[in-house]
């Protein structure tokens, strides 16, 4: 591994984690909901895309659209059926989303039969094949595509939140739910929209990263905890913080992978985000860019 490859892999993973974590942070910042099934959305979309492509039924773009629409539908159903009725009880919401995440994981396990490693057949993706040469290192061109796509998605999201009417309503609800209600904003609809948006963002992240990495059913918890660590690092509810946190975590993972000796590096780099969660929770629960909560 060279410096160039660390930069490229780190940046690519950072972009993907940024998209994933922005969804999580959005839901918490706007609705106060901690959605423990965020990782499950990720793996569900990844598996849906896998199944459609491995069975070679539809082309890749259509598989993406089907996956995203299913995840959006799941987001809507989650909000209406599960979260809205128990909204006042924070712990109940956590238990219910935890159970949903379990449901999704077990459903995938039932369908798959055991716990396989799903290796992707790269040739079926019509995007960038082959490798390009950056400063002397061979990098899969797919990583560049991932970065460009993630940047496009995030900038669309930021423009949407800043400029559109719904974006203004989202910002209003995140500041004060009751005042937003008084202003005539349908808070339930906005919360449902935000949850769906976060599910779709998780789906995007899955679609982007799945083209370069294998996926296992019990990775759902790992991605949930990664997005939680990113969000805790950046500050719950702060979107720029999530992006910064994503890059910090992904670069630290790859730097650790590069610096530590061979038998230990996989393991150590794999527990960095957990250590980050615990350290951030102990020392600064509001994150780097978050507001200090006086409860």
């Amino acid at each position: 591994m060279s410096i160039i490859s660390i930069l490229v892999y780190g940046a690519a993973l950072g972009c993907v984690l940024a998209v994933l974590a922005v969804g999580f942070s959005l839901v918490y910042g706007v609705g106060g909901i901690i959605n423990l099934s965020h990782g499950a959305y990720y793996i569900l979309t990844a598996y849906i895309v896998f199944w459609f492509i491995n069975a070679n039924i539809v082309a890749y773009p259509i598989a993406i659209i089907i996956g995203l629409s299913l995840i959006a539908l799941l987001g809507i159903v989650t909000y209406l059926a599960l979260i809205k009725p128990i909204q006042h009880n924070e712990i109940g919401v956590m238990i219910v989303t935890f159970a949903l995440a379990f449901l999704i994981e077990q459903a995938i396990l039932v369908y798959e039969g055991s716990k396989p490693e799903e290796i992707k057949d790269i040739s079926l993706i019509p995007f960038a094949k082959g490798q390009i040469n950056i400063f002397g290192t061979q990098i899969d061109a797919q990583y560049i595509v991932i970065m460009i796509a993630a940047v496009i998605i995030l900038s669309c999201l930021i423009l949407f939140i800043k400029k559109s009417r719904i974006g203004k309503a989202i910002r209003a609800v995140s500041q004060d739910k009751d005042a937003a209600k008084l202003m005539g904003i349908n808070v339930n609809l906005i919360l449902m929209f935000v949850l769906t948006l976060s599910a779709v963002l998780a789906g995007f992240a899955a679609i982007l990263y799945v083209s370069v990495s294998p996926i296992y059913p019990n990775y759902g918890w790992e991605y949930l905890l990664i997005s939680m660590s990113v969000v805790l690092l950046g500050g719950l509810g702060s979107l720029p913080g999530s992006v910064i946190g994503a890059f910090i975590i992904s670069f630290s993972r790859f730097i650790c992978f590069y610096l530590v000796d061979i038998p230990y590096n996989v393991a150590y780099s794999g527990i960095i985000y957990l250590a980050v969660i615990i350290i951030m929770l102990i020392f600064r629960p509001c994150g780097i860019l978050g507001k200090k909560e006086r409860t």
Partner: protein
Amino acid sequence: MVEKDQNVNEELVTEKVLTRRPFSIPLKNYSKKTSKRLGIFFKHKIPYAESELKSWVRSFRGGIILLCLFLVTLIPLLLNSIVYFHVFIIAMVYAIYAASWDLLSGVTGQVSFGHAAFFGLGGYMCAAFVKFLGFHWFPSIIIGGALGVLFGLIIAIPSLRLKGPYLALGSLAFSLLMWRLFSMESLRFLFFGSEGIRNVAFLQSLTLREKLITEFILALIIMIVCITIMLVVYNSKLGTIFKGIRDDEYATEAAGINVTRYKLLAFCISAFFAGIAGSIYMLHRGNVKPDIFMSLYSFYPIIMVVVGGISTISGAAFGAYFFYVLNEIITQLCSDFLPSNLQLIFSNIATLFFAIILLVVVRFTERGLMEPAIKRSKDLWDLLRGK
């Protein structure tokens, strides 16, 4: 008249003592005969335990619990087949585990999504002591619990300043950290690697049937002792303090109770019993793997307690039996009635089913399934008795 004055003085003295010792129950009509029967040990702690026990047994809830306990003891012994012993032993382990989660999360309000950490750590510690240090299994179980307490403190001290969602996330992260650490091959010298500890010797000199019966009786006794202790804690002043911490922490703090100390105590007690459950689980299975730290094992007490009735300790035991026996029945039915090529697919169907049940129960009921069921059966019983 002199006697009456002495009683009044006794009450004033014990009022002062109450503020210092959380385990006391207010002394009222303190009879000398009771103290003679129960001995000096119970006199200061639970002065009228005997009459309390009698009235509890006569009440409906106590009767149901004793009936269930009786059935649980008898069914495997009568049916005398190995499978039932396996199922009931593990169900008893889960009963202790779920009750410990309930004590922490339902009664004290510190919802932890990573209880598998205590469960697994208790199992690993007990295995290490039995296999590598050659202890007898009985002190190893207690040591498993005690080291569970140690780790409970390690988790509790940072968690003290965390409120609801942060605490749950932190405990989830801790249990997954344990999973990662214990499956790392590279740290094998410290953490036993991805195969865990195997071939832990436990009653090797008996035949399989005798070993299972011994384990069954052992687990039964330990379960009764543990759940009785937890129920006593629940009904005592300590339990009231825990419930106060759950309901309104600031009011409890304002009442002069050191909330920090009692939160630590709740973590310690809960981790102790979870560690004991983990030790028995390990001894039954004979090995312990890093899988025990996975979120599946953190999910089990949540669903058991939610189904059985959150914040009632006996509800946790009900839920544990209900869930685990149903789990085994479904798995058995699947393997009996499905052709073999579908069996692998449906082996996880039970957990899927229970995830759905958990969703439905949390969404629609407040107090779990067992409370309304007990209330309805109590009404039925009264109707049958002609009230």
